[in-house]
């Protein structure tokens, strides 16, 4: 099978070469320099340019029709809906620029192909035109910048006080979630304390950590409640990417990073909206982190508050049964 492909390739190459030779020899017989560009070359290439433009546009439209239903579904988070809105506006603007300027380019090629005895018009510059195409993009860009920065500030501003804290702990090649428990404070940790029995390096001298529990296989979020993720990496840079929530933040060893959002649809609701009964929210790694980078993920479930409470009760705190060092903590 493969040899057949190689054979066909060689055959194709030979055919092309022969074709070129024929063209060359025939022009030599006619006494023309085969590499001199002629009017008919110009006409042909100008036409191909215009045909190419329409083919490119057809390809563009075909892709939109063909792929639009396979893109990310409606945003599962509140801020994500705003991002989608802004993305649509931007995509429309840049698509218009793409379609129009490419048309101008290829149309010029078609219209002004070189003809024998014709002369180009000497136009060196035109201040008015140049002001237009400096000014118009500038104005459009300022609108884009304004909308973008406003949304960015909204999204990245500090979450309201009392927002539920969940830690995302990343290591080669998995994520774990640590819930901050009743006090909503994540207990301290230290990478020097990591061992087989304490994979997150939790610090037993910190009383606030005694109600923290770890979920290695799922992040469960109650719907319509803001959640703030604190992210920590054990080894290399990872990136916590929540495509369905339009959320992402790198997870960097040696420091904490944060991202907060508000899930607005339960998993059930999303299954309904997408018409996919197997739909699941997912967290995946989006920064090259090693050989199994392509398979580093954690399932996310969004449920009602009641379901969340039931799920929480099923988990026991990491230091369950041990007495917190309350005296020292309060000192």
């Amino acid at each position: 099978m493969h040899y057949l492909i190689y054979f066909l390739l060689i055959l194709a190459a030979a055919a092309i070469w022969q074709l070129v030779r024929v063209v060359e020899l025939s022009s030599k017989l006619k006494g023309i320099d085969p590499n001199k560009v002629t009017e008919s070359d110009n006409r042909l290439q100008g036409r191909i340019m215009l045909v190419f433009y329409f083919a490119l546009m057809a390809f563009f439209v075909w892709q939109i029709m063909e792929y639009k239903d396979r893109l990310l579904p409606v945003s599962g988070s509140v801020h994500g809906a705003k991002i989608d809105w802004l993305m649509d506006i931007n995509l429309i603007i840049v698509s218009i620029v793409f379609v129009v300027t490419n048309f101008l380019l290829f149309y010029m090629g078609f219209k002004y192909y070189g003809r024998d005895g014709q002369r180009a018009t000497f136009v060196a510059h035109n201040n008015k035109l140049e002001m237009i195409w400096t000014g118009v993009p500038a104005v459009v860009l300022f609108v884009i910048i304004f909308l973008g920065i406003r949304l960015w500030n909204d999204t990245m501003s500090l979450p309201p006080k009392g927002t539920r804290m969940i830690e995302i702990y990343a290591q080669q090649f998995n994520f774990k979630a640590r819930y901050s428990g009743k006090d909503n404070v994540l207990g301290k940790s230290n990478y020097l304390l990591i061992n087989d029995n304490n994979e997150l390096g939790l610090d037993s001298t910190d009383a606030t950590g005694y109600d923290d529990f770890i979920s290695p296989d799922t992040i469960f979020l109650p719907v319509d409640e803001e959640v703030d993720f604190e992210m920590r990496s054990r080894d290399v840079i990872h990136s916590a990417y929540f495509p369905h929530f339009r959320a992402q933040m790198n997870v960097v060893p040696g420091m904490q990073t944060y991202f907060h959002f508000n899930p607005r649809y339960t998993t059930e609701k999303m299954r309904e909206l997408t018409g996919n009964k197997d739909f699941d929210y997912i967290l995946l790694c989006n920064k090259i982190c090693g050989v199994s980078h392509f398979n580093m993920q954690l399932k996310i479930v969004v449920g009602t508050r009641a379901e969340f409470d039931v799920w929480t009760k099923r988990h026991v705190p990491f230091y369950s049964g041990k007495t917190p060092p309350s005296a020292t903590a309060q000192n």
Partner: protein
Amino acid sequence: MTTDMHAHSELHAQSLEHDAHVHHGHDDHDHHQSFVAKYVFSMDHKTISRQFLITAVIMACVAMLMSIVFRLQLAWPGEKFAFINAIMGDKWGKDGILDPNAYMSLVTIHGTIMVFMVLTGGLSGTFANLLIPYQIGARDMASGFLNMLSYWFFFLSSVTIIISLFVTDGAASGGWTVYPPLSALPQAMPGSGTGMTLWLIAMSFFIISSLLGGLNYIITIINMRTKGMKMTRMPLTIWAIFVTAILGVLSFPVLFSCALLLIFDRSFGTSFYLSDIFIGGHPLDQTGGSPILFEHLFWFLGHPEVYIIILPALGLTSEIISVNSRKPIFGYRAMITSILAIGFLSFIVWGHHMFLTGMNPFLGSVFVFTTLLIAIPSAVKAFNYITTLWKGNIQFTPQMLFACGLVSTFISGGVTGIILADSALDINIHDTYFVVAHFHIVMGVSAILGMLAGVYHWFPKLFLRHMNKTMGYLHFWITFICAYGVFFPMHFLGLAGVPRRYYQNTAFPMFDNLQDINVLITIFAIIAACGQLIFLFNFFYSIFRGPKSVQNPYNSNTLEWTTPMANTHGNWPGELPEVHRWPYDYSRPGEEADFIPQTVPLREGEEDGGGHHA
């Protein structure tokens, strides 16, 4: 007699010496050189240019072959390919299935070779060396010796990268951006061992090469312009190369410091980039460093770098579009201003690569603002190209097609940059295939098209012959169609949330229905690669057997076409030409010929620069 023909400088004496050479003995000069001095350790700018070009062509083939191997994996994961086994051997391609670590190495080295060896070293090295002396009217570069060293460091760098492919644990595999800690710790991935060490050595050689070359380019352009060659009479090619060289000289040292600190962290136990790491079952001693420092240092080079790649390509395009439209480049002064503006802005936008690194979000807003400003000079350039075509008498030589192709991809890839520069939108497409699509089209494809345009256009100056036109047409259309075919669909993968640098997407059911897109991309990539065979054949065949060129085959105005079609040492057998006008007097009304070379004096009352006021 030549004293008044040179700019004032300390290089003066040397130039005179050159002149003396040429006046007294240019006829038999070449015969006195040994083979080694003439073809290997040559100090002649034309030979060095050819050396850069041929090295870059070979490196580009290597990088392209790599892309085909990993594209096969992405389109048909788990499928067995005799081809993969043949290329990767039993170790990395056992039974014809690509090893995941080898996949990582391939994407890393593909990026490294394309960005540095082909589009920085290859593109600038070839055309800066060829065109600076030719187009400003100089006998050679300011320092032929440094120029020679520049090539040989580049060669060493390329060889080192190739050698790194053959070490036991594989080549560097942390992505071409080599973020630590991944790249600093061999425990993190095998490629971060010897492979990464070699990568850093190669990069150090490369930076040396780039600095030697860049300083030379700047000095030559400033000091060695021939009489009458004012800065405002320089072809845009030289302007672009000039600004590129300045960017390189200012930013590559930062990459060097970045790499040096990484070498310290890897080998000497420092902790510039490392902190609080537990890996391979043990905590590391290093604490207090920050990987974000690396990212800042890296992208302080990394962003100017993309302009170091694209500006020379745009420069070549300016010249080619003007010559082949038989019209002056539209808005010469605006083009210069745009190049300068792009050059300046390129230094204050690096943070747009880092919106989501944990950098303060306020800084993100600042970088959104500065980044989007770059779209303005870029738009000016694009419109000026289109208007240059307007009412032209376009000669569709292969190089003209490549140049028009560049304008198209520069626009198509540029507009998606507007989306990526918008930090709020970047949240969801950062590091997805949307980014891969964007930078390949705007930087990779555009720069390659520009470079190929340059090769076709200046082939007569490089090798004194012409490349075959018909094969050129075929090569262009296959390359251009396939470039869109490969990279356009990637936008949709990105919008579907597919991360880059995944060995396969099969671990996520949500990506299952995107597989046919990957197949489509790979088919286009394979056709594109086959199309390059046409170019390779045409290129090497024409070097030896192509039809000989006349002195000024395209009726151009610039000075390189006033030199004889021979590899004359010192370029002009007689005196250096004197320049009287800007380079874009094409189809001037009232003139018989549709071009007026720069050496033709202005007529009585004629205004220079097509009505631009100095």
